[in-house]
């Protein structure tokens, strides 16, 4: 099975700088975001969509089952648009599904935060109950970032990316609102919910450090003018996070030491399990149409 190499994607992106097809083809001289940048955004969405969908049928209350399904559906939808854009620009026989199903874990460019299971710090093959506080806290930390990222990308000169950003921004605002609402309820709810939310925050917060050190793809996107410099979003992100944590009576943890590197393709033990499950059936029938 021919997995699509990121280096190949990178090379092709240069050839594909004047993309063909798509609803809004770029005008001559306009910028297309580097393929690896699109893949970083798409991988984030597909991995978190996959994780959140694990709650389907197991939510704490029926309304939340439906709400989390919505969140998941939004992420899968964003992933599809981004992979489709990347596939169009790569040309040949590349499709959204080739990019999602036939790349290996080391080729995925998502934040490590997003691939973690819904529980506290445990090794890859540990089995644990899902914890809704972990799910909500992650959706909050990431949702706060993505509202800022999409706000910036909505103004990207890459018109195709800007269109995806505009659509995704509306969704991200809802995701942030939903997660922040619950985080405040947990923090300022019962002793148990407070303790669970604080534990989730203590577990997950260090992973957000990965947001702030740009990857090669992000730097290339900034250089091309199509991307956003994540460092410029940090103060605004801190503002959103600190305000919500104060309202939730939760304590922002100190962060030091190892910074995760998922967006560079160096992941935790958890991603290969997630992809193994997600990709298994598609890979058992290469070339099949579904």
């Amino acid at each position, binding site marked *: 099975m021919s997995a699509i190499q990121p280096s190949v994607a990178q090379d092709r992106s240069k050839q594909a700088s004047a993309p063909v097809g798509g609803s809004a083809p770029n005008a001559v001289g306009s910028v297309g975001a580097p393929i690896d940048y699109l893949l970083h955004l798409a991988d984030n969405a*597909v991995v978190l969509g*996959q994780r959140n*969908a*694990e709650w*389907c*049928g*197991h*939510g*704490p*209350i*029926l*309304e*939340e*089952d*439906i709400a989390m*399904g*919505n969140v*998941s*559906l939004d992420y*899968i*939808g964003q*992933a*599809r648009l981004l*992979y489709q854009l990347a596939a169009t620009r790569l040309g040949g026989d590349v499709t*959204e*599904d080739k990019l*999602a*199903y036939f790349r290996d874990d080391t080729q995925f460019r998502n934040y490590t935060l997003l691939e973690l299971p819904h529980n506290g710090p445990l090794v890859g093959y540990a089995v644990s*109950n*899902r914890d*809704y506080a972990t799910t909500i806290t992650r959706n909050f930390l990431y949702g706060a970032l993505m509202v800022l990222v999409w706000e910036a990308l909505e103004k990207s000169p890459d018109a195709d990316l800007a269109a995806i950003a505009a659509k995704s921004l509306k969704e991200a605002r809802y995701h942030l609102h939903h997660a922040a609402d619950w985080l*405040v*309820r*947990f923090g*300022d*709810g*019962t002793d*148990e*919910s407070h303790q*669970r939310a604080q534990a989730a925050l203590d577990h997950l917060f260090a992973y957000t450090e990965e947001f702030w050190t740009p990857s090669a793809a992000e730097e290339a996107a900034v250089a091309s003018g199509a991307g956003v410099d994540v460092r410029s979003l940090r103060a605004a992100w801190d503002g959103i996070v600190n305000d919500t944590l104060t309202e939730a009576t939760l304590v922002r943890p100190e962060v030091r030491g190892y910074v995760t590197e998922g967006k560079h393709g160096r992941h935790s033990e958890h991603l290969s399990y997630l992809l193994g*499950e*997600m990709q*298994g*059936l*598609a890979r058992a*029938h290469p*070339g*099949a*149409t*579904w």
Partner: protein
Amino acid sequence: MYTQSFSVPDNAGQKSARTPSTENPELMAAFDARIDADGRIEPQDWMPEAYRKTLVRQISQHAHSEIVGMLPEGNWISRAPSLKRKAILIAKVQDEGGHGLYLYSAAETLGTSRDQMLEGLHSGKAKYSSIFNYPTLNWADVGVIGWLVDGAAIMNQIPLCRCSYGPYARAMVRVCKEESFHQRQGYEALLVMMQGTEAQRAMVQDAVNRLWWKCLAMFGPPDADSPNSAQGMRWGIKRISNDELRQKFIDATVPQAKVLGVTLPDPDLKWNEERQHHDYGQIDWQEFWNTVEGNGPCNKERLATRVKAHNDGQWVRDAALAYTRKQQQRAQKEAA
């Protein structure tokens, strides 16, 4: 999704409730007249206790079926072989959750809380559709459930859009629209698979072989053995008999199977020129009742999973309640 429960009492074997003679005769006469005139009964209207009880049982079983029905298909979300199919499946399972929500709300208008209904499900007292007690073993099960199970649901529920109880009838109108969308999506997914590889076609046939007879049983026991049907018909809760609906379903499905290129696993299935219907083989009712009574292949897993989700979610619901209370107290303090 839906339930075959319209003729399945919660405590299988027990006699169904009869209209008690203690009801006020004047009110009863007015109620009967409204039913006879094909009028709607609304929540604030007087209704006989037995009517109320029957409806609560039927609507809550229907709601439980929607919720339990999320599990067999949910089993394939993480492994859906394309992003498009993954999105369609998440949306479908989510729709089923939404159906559960409308139905619990409809039942609540009869004075029973969602907690009470869930307690009935979790304790094993309340039934749900037996179709969800079978495992989903390959990806084509998702398509076959859409095509046949949602298809059977539509057959059963379209008459319920004219049900005498207003809130239930209105919920059914909305639910039926979505179920027919599910059915078309399921069928379309199977068409694509049948035009695909040998392995894909084999998956579809395997899923049809396992699910066909279970779908026929979804319409409930033969009319001769359905003690609740007559009262349900009288009250405008049930409009068409189990056997009639089953026949309609078979007649509609045979040509669809032909287009698809799958074989329905019944050697006795053939067109009867005289009846202008398809004849079909014997349904295994022993197996059906075993499953309804809790001893099918997945009953224990399905129920235990619902109970676990509910118990694991207790702290979340408690947190929401505690927070709301705190907010109210704060507001009161400010007002004081």
